[in-house]
C-alpha cells in the first residue's frame, strides 16, 4: 500500500524527539530566510529577475556554453565537456593521473555526489578528502548527505565526537592544542562533544590535508559566461583553502549553472545565502577566473541528463534551480521525514522532481512526499513550480505502472459513480452509514485514505441537497 518514502518516513517517526528536533532545526532556517526576505523591499523584484534571467539563460544554453568556453579558454582555463557521469569521472581521473596526484581536497559539490566521483577515484587509488565540515563528518562516518546545503545537521554531536576519536589519529593532540590556545577553559568543564572544540579539531585535521594534497576540486555555484568566472560561495572558506595551496584546480559544473554576466551575478549573490541559510551573504564569494601563477585550472562542463530535462515541456524549469535548499527547509514533509526517507540523493521538493527526471521508475516512491501545500513554490528564489510539477508526476504514475492499486480501484469506482447522477445521489445518502461503522472496517487495509489520518464524518445533509434548497429559496 505505502510508497517507499512513506515506509521510510514511518520508521523515522520511531523517535519523536529526533523528528521534533529535525523539524525545528530546519524551520528555524526557514524563519531566518523569511526575516531576510522581509528586510528587503525589493525581494519579489529580485526573485522575478532571477526567474527571468534563468529562463533566458537555459533557453539559450548553447550560446552561453560556447561563450563561457571562449572566455575561460582566453583566461588560460582548460574546458572539458562530459555527456554523462562516466565520461566526467574519466576526465577528472585523467587530469589527476596526468599530474600524478594521489590526494585531492574537495569542497562541497552535489554534482560529484550525482556522478559518484569519490568512489570512482578511490577505486583507482586516489584519496579524496571532503573539506566542508559537514561533508567531512559524513565521509568519516560513511554516511550520505541528508540535505544539500546543511548535509550533516541530522548527526548528533556525541556521534561526531566518537567518529573523530576513532578516525583522526591526532584527536588527543589536537584537543590539547585547543586548551593550550584557550587557557581560560578548563578541560574538565568543557563537554567532550562541544561543537567549538570539535570544529577546532577538524580544522587542524583538515589543515594537514590542504597542505599535502596534489589538487583541489570545487563545484560551481555560478559560471559567468561573459568573463569565464567560476563563482563558489562558502562560509568556511574551504573552497579557497582547497584551491589556494595545491597548484591544480578542477571545477565540476553542471551545464545549467551558467548565468550571462556580472549584472546577473548581483541578483543571484543577493538571493543565494538569504534563501539557503538566512544569511545576508556567505562569508566567501570567490571568483576563480583562471589558474594561479604556475598552476593549472580545468573546468568540466557536465550534461548527465540536463539537456534531456531541457526537452521536457513539463519539467524543464527545474534547470533554473540553484540548489539553495529553501524548498526542503520549508517542506513540512521533509522536515518531519528527513533526507534518508527519500530514495534520490537530493531530498525535498526539488529532489522529488530531479529524481523523477533521472529515473521515474526507480524514484517514483518519492512523489507521495508532498502535501501539495505549495510552500516550496513561494520560497523558491527562481520560481520553480515545484509542487505543480510533483502533481503532474502523480498524474503520470499510472502510465508508468506505479499507481497505488487500491487507490486506482477506488478511483475507478468513484469515476463510475460520479458519472451516474442517480447512483451518486443514492450513494451520498448511503454514505452517512459509514459514520456508524466500527473503526475496524473503516480503517481496514481496504481504505487507502483511512491510513495515517482520521476520515471525515459524513454530514447529515449533503451539500448537494443544501444547494438545491437554496435555489428553491431564491426562486
Amino acid at each position: 500500500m505505502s510508497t517507499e518514502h512513506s515506509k521510510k518516513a514511518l520508521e523515522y517517526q520511531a523517535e519523536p524527539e529526533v523528528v521534533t528536533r529535525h523539524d525545528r532545526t530546519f524551520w528555524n532556517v526557514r524563519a531566518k530566510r523569511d526575516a531576510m526576505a522581509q528586510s528587503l523591499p525589493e525581494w519579489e523584484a529580485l526573485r522575478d529577475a532571477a526567474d527571468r534571467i534563468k529562463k533566458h539563460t537555459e533557453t539559450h544554453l548553447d550560446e552561453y556554453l560556447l561563450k563561457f568556453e571562449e572566455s575561460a579558454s582566453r583566461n588560460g582555463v582548460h574546458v572539458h565537456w562530459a555527456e554523462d557521469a562516466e565520461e566526467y569521472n574519466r576526465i577528472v581521473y585523467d587530469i589527476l593521473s596526468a599530474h600524478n596526484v594521489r590526494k585531492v581536497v574537495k569542497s562541497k559539490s552535489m554534482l560529484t555526489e550525482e556522478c559518484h566521483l569519490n568512489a570512482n577515484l578511490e577505486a583507482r587509488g586516489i584519496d579524496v578528502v571532503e573539506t566542508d565540515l559537514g561533508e567531512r563528518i559524513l565521509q568519516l562516518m560513511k554516511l550520505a548527505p541528508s540535505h544539500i546545503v546543511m548535509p550533516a545537521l541530522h548527526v548528533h554531536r556525541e556521534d561526531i565526537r566518537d567518529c573523530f576519536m576513532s578516525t583522526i589519529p591526532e584527536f588527543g593532540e589536537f584537543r590539547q592544542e585547543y586548551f593550550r590556545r584557550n587557557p581560560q577553559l578548563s578541560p574538565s568543564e568543557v563537554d567532550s562533544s562541544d561543537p567549538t572544540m570539535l570544529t577546532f579539531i577538524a580544522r587542524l585535521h583538515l589543515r594537514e590535508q590542504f597542505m599535502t594534497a596534489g589538487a583541489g576540486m570545487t563545484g560551481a555555484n555560478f559560471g559567468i559566461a561573459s568573463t569565464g568566472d567560476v563563482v563558489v560561495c562558502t562560509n568556511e572558506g574551504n573552497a579557497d583553502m582547497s584551491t589556494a595551496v595545491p597548484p591544480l584546480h578542477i571545477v565540476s559544473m553542471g551545464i545549467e549553472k551558467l548565468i550571462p554576466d556580472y549584472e546577473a551575478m548581483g541578483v543571484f549573490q543577493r538571493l543565494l545565502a538569504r534563501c539557503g541559510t538566512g544569511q545576508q551573504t556567505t562569508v566567501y564569494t570567490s571568483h576563480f577566473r583562471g589558474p594561479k601563477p604556475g598552476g593549472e585550472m580545468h573546468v568540466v562542463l557536465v550534461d548527465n541528463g540536463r539537456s534531456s530535462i531541457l526537452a521536457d515541456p513539463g519539467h524543464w524549469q527545474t534547470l533554473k534551480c540553484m540548489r539553495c535548499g529553501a524548498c526542503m527547509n520549508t517542506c513540512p514533509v521533509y522536515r518531519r521525514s528527513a533526507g534518508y526517507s527519500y530514495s534520490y540523493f537530493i531530498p525535498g521538493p526539488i529532489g522529488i522532481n530531479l529524481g523523477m527526471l533521472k529515473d521515474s521508475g526507480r524514484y517514483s516512491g518519492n512523489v507521495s512526499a508532498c502535501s501539495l501545500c505549495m510552500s516550496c513554490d513561494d520560497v523558491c528564489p527562481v520560481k520553480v513550480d515545484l509542487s505543480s510539477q510533483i502533481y503532474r508526476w502523480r498524474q503520470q504514475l499510472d502510465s508508468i505502472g506505479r499507481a497505488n492499486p487500491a487507490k486506482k480501484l477506488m478511483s475507478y469506482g468513484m469515476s463510475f459513480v460520479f458519472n451516474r447522477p442517480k447512483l451518486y445521489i443514492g450513494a451520498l445518502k448511503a454514505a452517512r452509514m459509514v459514520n456508524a461503522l466500527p473503526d475496524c472496517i473503516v480503517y481496514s487495509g481496504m481504505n487507502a485514505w483511512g491510513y495515517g489520518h482520521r476520515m471525515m464524518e459524513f454530514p447529515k445533509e449533503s451539500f448537494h441537497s443544501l444547494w438545491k434548497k437554496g435555489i428553491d429559496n431564491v426562486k
Partner: protein
Amino acid sequence: MSSKENILSRIRNAGREKFGKPEIAVDAIRYDDPVEQFINACRTVSGAEVSFGTPPPDDVRGESSTVRGAFGVAENGCIWIPQTEDDRAYLFTSEHLDIIVSKNDIVNNMHEAYARIAASSEYFGTYKFGTFISGPSKTADIEGALVYGAQAARSVRIYLI
C-alpha cells in the same frame, strides 16, 4: 561527433521557446549613511571587529596577516579583495586577518559592487582571482551551533581609513 557537439545539438533540438534577455531593473536598497550601515553589517552580520585608522605596526597577533580591500558593501559587510601578489593562501590560512578599506569606497549593495568590478580594468589582470570576504570563517555544521574559525581566518578586524 564529440561530446561537446552532442551536448550542444541536444540543447538545440530541445525545442524550447526562447525567452529574451530581461532588463534587470531591481530598485535595490540604498542607505542614507552607507558607511554606518557597513560598520553595522560587519559587526552584526559578519562577526568582524571594526576599528578606525591603520593597523598599529606593533599589532602582534599569532599568524596574522593584513590585506587592502578594494571596496566594501554596506548591505552585507562584504569586502572585495582582488589577488594582488603571487600567493593568495595567506588570505585563508592566517589565523587572523586585518582588512583595510577606505570609507570613501563603500557601495550600497551587490548590484553596485558587481557594476564596479565589471567597469574596472584593475582586477583579474595578472592574477585571475578575487573574493568577497565578510568576516571570519564560520560553520554551523555540528547541530547548527555557530562556530567561528572553521577552515580559514578565525577572526577578522576591519580598519576603516
